[in-house]
């Protein structure tokens, strides 16, 4: 019907709908006009009762539809809408950051509601009394700040970070004009324990250092879910490590010390300590250099511990076996440099003897024979040329030699000329003692995510290294590390530090890299313990005296936590007594 009835086509006064709505408006009015016309036609056809009924019926339909729609909408809202909207959305346990726990759920870091203290001087009756009472209740409150707020004329913050106890103390004064506002704060209840490793987070809830920074996003996500985030640390192991490390460092008058315990099969760090330590809550009072996590950021020329790597490379390339002979009867000459032995034997030695007597001459000869390419390849495989694979952002890159000539190779073979972090050391030791798989260190419970361990040396090499390390403890320089019945194997490391271009014997470094138990299948549970003493003040300064006893104490005390049983092996009984040599000769070749 194209006839336009102007009665129905009338825009609302004052509103210009002509522009955009005109097609719609025209269509609607046509529809209404058609309906009206229908009624008129019905009346004209002589059925006058029909038109009112049709109208009523139409209106009924329209209203029914509207009300049905409203009813459905209302019931939907009542039944489902509210449940999703108000209750399920907000998790009452949600936090800005999740708790940080050790592998067994012991608390390492948590969020605690602290309070900001606000004062409104207008509501305070006696300002001097309030001043005295507040100072008594909160000794750390600065007098000047408090005085300024009290003499002011509006509500101001006086102090942030009140603990709940402090809040209660102030609240009990029953002063007027005192208000508290809650603020979420990160708390580190362990004080000095694992402080470098945990790191800290700022008041905005962002990680700043340590694991708090390394796992920042995951810790925050865990907090939103109301869960905690477990690290690979075992607090019992960590505690023992810290205590023994501190005891040894004090006893040896060391400048610094590092201790690391890892699971060599999974790469999990069970304990990591750096001495001296400090308390996160009192960071300002930290001694000089204490905030440095030496375990991942300290660079050291490690010394003889590196002989393990040289020997492993020699065995793995097939260049040497246990009985290969090295002439250590005189100093090894490279150019105008003479390499001598610290514990000179002045004789021809097998590879095993080279390792046990820690012969610089022997390992230098081996390294020079292997050549720069092989050495560089093995150092790279052992992760000595890159930062350790641990998640901590502090993990530092090593200082590696630029030229790999024969003299450098000789130095590298016994741990000079390259500065690595203790974490790299432990990672490489782990790879050599777990069957030859390079597993990155990890602070994540269960090991690094998505890590694909790859074979870097053969299983035979790994087995041989385990044998050598055990021999070194029972027959060689590592005797002090032998924890009774725990089958400890290890290698001492002693180095002088480079001071003003000269190696200064008065500034030494003693370390001991150990694994236990060395026996059993290659994939059996095995733990690496590494202790390093930086600049010990006592004499002798070698790793055998400054670090090995600490390794023994640590291994002895953590074995129970790790489920390592005391057992006899070829050389020692389960309680650490020597088994006489003749038994081996007469026995069945054990």
């Amino acid at each position, binding site marked *: 019907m194209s006839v336009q009835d102007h009665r129905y086509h009338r825009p609302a006064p004052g509103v210009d709908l002509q522009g955009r709505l005109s097609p719609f408006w025209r269509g609607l009015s046509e529809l209404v006009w058609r309906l009206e016309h229908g009624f008129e036609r019905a009346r004209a056809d002589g059925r006058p009762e029909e038109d009112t009924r049709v109208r009523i019926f139409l209106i009924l339909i329209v209203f029914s539809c509207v009300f049905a729609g409203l009813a459905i909408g209302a019931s939907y809202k009542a039944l489902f809408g509210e449940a999703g909207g108000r209750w399920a959305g907000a998790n009452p346990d949600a936090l800005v950051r999740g708790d940080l726990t050790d592998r067994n759920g012991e608390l*390492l870091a*948590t969020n605690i509601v602290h309070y900001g203290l606000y004062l409104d001087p207008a509501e305070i009756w006696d300002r001097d009394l309030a001043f005295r009472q507040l100072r008594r209740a909160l000794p750390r409150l600065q007098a000047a700040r408090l005085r300024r707020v009290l003499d002011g004329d509006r509500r101001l913050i006086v102090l942030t970070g009140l603990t709940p106890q402090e809040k209660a103390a102030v609240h009990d004064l029953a002063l007027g004009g005192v208000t508290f506002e809650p603020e979420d704060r990160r708390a580190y209840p*362990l004080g000095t*324990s694992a402080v470098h490793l945990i790191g800290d987070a700022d008041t905005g809830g962002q990680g700043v250092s340590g694991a708090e920074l390394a796992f920042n996003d995951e810790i925050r996500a865990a907090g939103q879910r109301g869960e905690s985030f477990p690290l690979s640390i075992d607090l019992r192991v960590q505690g023992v490590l810290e205590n023994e490390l501190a005891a040894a460092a004090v006893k040896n008058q060391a400048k610094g010390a590092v201790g690391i315990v890892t699971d060599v099969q999974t790469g999990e760090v069970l304990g990591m300590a750096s001495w001296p330590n400090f308390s996160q809550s009192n960071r300002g009072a930290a001694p000089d250099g204490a905030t440095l996590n030496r375990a991942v950021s300290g660079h050291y020329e490690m010394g003889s511990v590196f002989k393990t790597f040289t020997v492993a490379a020699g065995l793995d390339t097939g260049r040497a076996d246990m009985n290969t002979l090295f002439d250590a009867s005189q100093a090894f000459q490279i150019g105008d440099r003479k390499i001598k032995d610290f514990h000179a034997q002045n004789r021809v030695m097998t590879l095993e003897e080279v390792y046990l007597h820690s012969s610089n001459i022997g390992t230098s000869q081996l390294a020079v024979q292997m050549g720069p390419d092989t050495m560089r390849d093995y150092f790279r495989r052992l992760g000595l040329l890159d930062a350790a694979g641990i998640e901590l952002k502090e993990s530092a890159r090593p200082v590696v030699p630029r030229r790999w000539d024969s003299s450098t190779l000789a130095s590298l073979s016994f741990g000079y000329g390259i500065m690595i972090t203790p974490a790299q050391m432990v990672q490489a030791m782990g790879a050599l003692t777990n069957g030859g798989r390079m597993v990155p260190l990890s602070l994540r419970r269960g090991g690094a995510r998505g890590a694909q361990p790859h074979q870097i040396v053969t299983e035979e090499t790994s087995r041989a290294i385990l044998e050598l390390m055990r021999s070194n403890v029972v027959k060689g320089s590592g005797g002090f590390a032998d924890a009774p019945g725990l089958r400890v194997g290890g290698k001492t490391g002693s180095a002088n530090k480079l001071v003003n271009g000269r190696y200064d014997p008065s500034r030494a470094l003693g370390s001991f890299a150990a694994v236990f138990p060395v026996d059993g299948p290659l994939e059996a549970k095995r733990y690496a313990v590494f202790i390093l003493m930086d600049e010990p003040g006592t004499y002798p300064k070698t790793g055998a005296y400054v670090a090995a006893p600490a390794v023994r104490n640590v291994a002895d005390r953590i074995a129970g936590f790790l489920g390592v049983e005391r057992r006899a092996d070829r050389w020692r*009984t389960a309680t650490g*007594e020597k088994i006489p040599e003749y038994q081996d000769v007469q026995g069945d070749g054990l």
Partner: protein
Amino acid sequence: MTTAPFFTYSRTALHRLFDWKVRGVRWIEIIGVALVAVMIVSVYAAKAAAARESSRIAQLEQDIRENGQRVRLLRAEVARLEQPARLESLSRQIGLAPVEVHRQAKEDQLPALKAAPAPAPATPAVAQAAPAEVAAAAPEAVQ
């Protein structure tokens, strides 16, 4: 049309229903109004109950939150008191030390360390077994 009688019947029934009146008011309207009144009252009651429940839920959630915070605080306090360095210095102060290896034993070694109380009071010497002998007697120490 077969359905025509049904339509006429229902039409007359409908007519009767709408013609059923009391004092000029249709019963159907009275019933409708009564039903609406019942519905209003019941919806009101349900809403009031729901409001009560939801305020109770909010109260409980608040309690949970407060208790959760208390728990967190107490856990932190426990962790503070159990600091390894603190425990170690406390134990050293009262003269405790790690157990020496010769004084350690496993459960299966217990009978060897001290014989089960036998009825015959004749074996006090066995109980005095020296630790070294005990270790030697351990099955894995034989190799």
